[in-house]
């Protein structure tokens, strides 16, 4: 009983120090609101409002029709007519246009002769991902146009691909970003809280007082862990609500599975935070330490770029990155209604990581306490 009541009083003290100042309370809520409001609009690989430069040397009907299709598709909000190769160069060079289309003078004649007319599309290689996506928009508009032409001429293509997207049929980027954001913002919040809590006490000299109290190092760790887990749950719930109520992302899976996964994730994270905390002397060192862990962990989580594009050895290394597993849990449960078995297969690495980091942190604590 004393065990529980001692931990309870320590946890209460931690919460008090978190909420006591206005700036402390602000730091728990403001970044969440700011990031939830900005990220879904900024962090998108979707190509919108792109411009297409068109250098048309052909006078025929087909080229005009094709251009009209491109203009009407909605993928490009601006069509820039250019009249010379020099202007094509300029429009790409100054980033005025993402793509440039060059229609040769014999375009319509070749189609009339039954040959394949080739249209050169120039892509800005400095923005290779965007320009490739924009190119695939062009390609699909052209496919529809060709099919219509074939239909008008009474020809039937021998086969066609009927493509659909599952889970998020219209490839809405906010559906992809918000679940990942649950994972990322939770990470920043609970990691900074744990990493700074011990080093702040050490800088202010109150850590020694804690050590001479009847609390054991393990109890101190639990007392530091509980508020961090609570902060993580609180921030995650905020974003979850914003995702469902404000951004209208439909939540498909089970809340119990999501929060269960979140619990084990928080433990793994708290372990990392406490470890950083136990090896740093000042708040500055703890902050920079948390930064040095956080940035690579988030960048390599599969949120910015898919894990499968990394070299194989790096894919294996990311197994020890807790953010990676949690991003997959949130996305899986949120968008795909992932099964219990699937979530378990993602949780067990988290248990291993949590066990490892918490043990390390406990060892460091005991050494400091001794």
């Amino acid at each position, binding site marked *: 009983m004393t065990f529980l009541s001692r931990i309870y009083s320590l946890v209460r003290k931690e919460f008090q120090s978190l909420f006591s100042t206005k700036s402390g309370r602000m730091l728990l809520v403001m970044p969440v609101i700011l990031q939830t409001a900005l990220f879904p609009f900024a962090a998108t690989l979707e190509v919108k409002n792109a411009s297409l430069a068109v250098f048309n040397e052909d006078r025929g009907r087909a080229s005009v029709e094709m251009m009209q299709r491109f203009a009407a598709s909605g993928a490009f909000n601006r069509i820039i007519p250019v009249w010379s190769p020099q202007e094509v160069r300029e429009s790409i060079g100054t980033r005025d246009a993402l793509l440039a289309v060059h229609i040769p003078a014999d375009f319509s004649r070749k189609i009339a002769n*039954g040959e394949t007319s080739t249209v050169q599309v120039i*892509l800005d290689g400095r923005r290779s991902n965007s320009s490739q996506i924009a190119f695939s928009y062009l390609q699909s508009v*052209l496919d529809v146009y060709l099919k219509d032409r074939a239909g008008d001429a009474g020809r039937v293509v021998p086969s066609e691909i009927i493509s659909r997207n599952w889970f998020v049929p219209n490839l809405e980027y906010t559906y992809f970003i918000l679940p990942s954001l649950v994972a990322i913002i939770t990470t920043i919040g609970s990691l900074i809280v744990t990493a*700074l809590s011990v080093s702040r006490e050490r800088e202010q000299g109150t850590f020694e007082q804690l050590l001479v109290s009847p609390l054991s190092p393990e109890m101190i760790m639990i007392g530091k862990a509980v508020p961090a887990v609570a902060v993580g749950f609180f921030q995650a719930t905020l974003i979850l609500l914003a995702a469902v109520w404000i951004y209208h992302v439909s939540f498909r899976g089970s809340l119990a599975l999501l929060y269960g996964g979140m619990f084990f994730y928080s433990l793994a994270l708290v372990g990392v935070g406490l470890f950083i905390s136990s090896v740093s002397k000042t708040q500055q060192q703890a*902050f920079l330490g948390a*930064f040095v862990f956080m940035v690579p962990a988030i960048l390599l989580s599969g949120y910015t770029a898919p894990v499968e594009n990394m070299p194989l050895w790096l894919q294996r290394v990311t197994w020890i990155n807790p953010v990676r597993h949690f991003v997959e849990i949130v996305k899986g449960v949120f968008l795909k209604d992932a099964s219990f078995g699937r979530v378990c297969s993602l949780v067990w690495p988290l248990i291993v990581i949590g066990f490892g980091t918490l043990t390390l942190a406990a060892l460091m604590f005991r050494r400091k306490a001794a």
Partner: protein
Amino acid sequence: MNWISWRRLRALCWKETLQIFRDPSSILIAFFMPLLMLFIFGYGINLDFSRLRVGLRIEDGGGEAADFAAALTGSRWLEVRSYDSRAALERALVDCEIRGFVVIPEDFSRKVKQVGVTAPVQLVADGSEPNIAQFVRSTVNGVWQTWQAHRAEDRGEKMSREIALEPRFWFNSSAESRNFIIPGSITVIMTVIGALLTSLVVAREWERGTMEALLASPVTRTELLLCKILPYYGLGMVSLLLCVGVAHWVLRVPFRGTMPALWVVGTFFLLSVLGIGLAISTGMRNQFNAAQAALNAAFLPAVMLSGFIYEISSMPVFLRGVTHIIPARYFVTSMQTIFQAGTDWSLLWPDILMLACTSFVFIGLTAKLTKRRME
């Protein structure tokens, strides 16, 4: 009164430099972090899908179906896995084993041969990963088009396509995303050194009370500003050269520009971020708050709003407006130009002009804040 005494300035700069080298966390941020970040951006952040995992289910026993399946399997962009039921395909898609699947339905071979009938092929992509889904669709479509063209050719038919698009990349002919991400990522590294580190260092001086001691000495405002700017400018430039060197010689990103261009662009950008960092720490005087503010005001915008991963033109109008006051935006485009296109002053000068403006604004702001603090 003299504005600058060179002897005092030298002494102050020397003190600042010593502090940099004595603090392990500043060395961590200035030399270890750049290497770590370059390494991550070089190997970890790759937007090129070299092997897309795609599931395949053939429900048709005919030769045409097998032929198309072989075309899919033979594509060097796809890693095709066969499944024996639709349920297995669906489970694999939920579990992220595959990013999409192709189903060749019954009767495919018969319908393909039949004149006047279109044989459908079903393609399902994982919409929860929109970027990957786009690439799955365009890659499978590409394979299918090539297959159709070959098939028509083999049978002596006229080419089925009337119009073909021929993509050509300019500036980065192999279309490797790392060639533009790495130059862009140097921006993030420079921001961390320029803003995050300086925001901590000056605030620490206030926290520890050494700033009062400095202010009580005959140091002028210009000297005070310069002694904070010059050592970190030097540190930043060394870091920039380190980054460009590692990017070029270790990560093999082509560097087509020249040193003077790099120096001009780097100087103005560093002055801008140093201005931000110093303004924050002069205004905050508290390490923890300054670090948080620098994280939100300098680091996150450099990642999210500078356009090095996320295209600025795709953002809504109000965010696009915000990006105009972010120096990182101009540094990203000029670094990409210097690396990929070479020293083309006609492309560079608008960015340099904007960077000069932002550095003037932020350093001016710091000077103003410093003045108020000193009175």
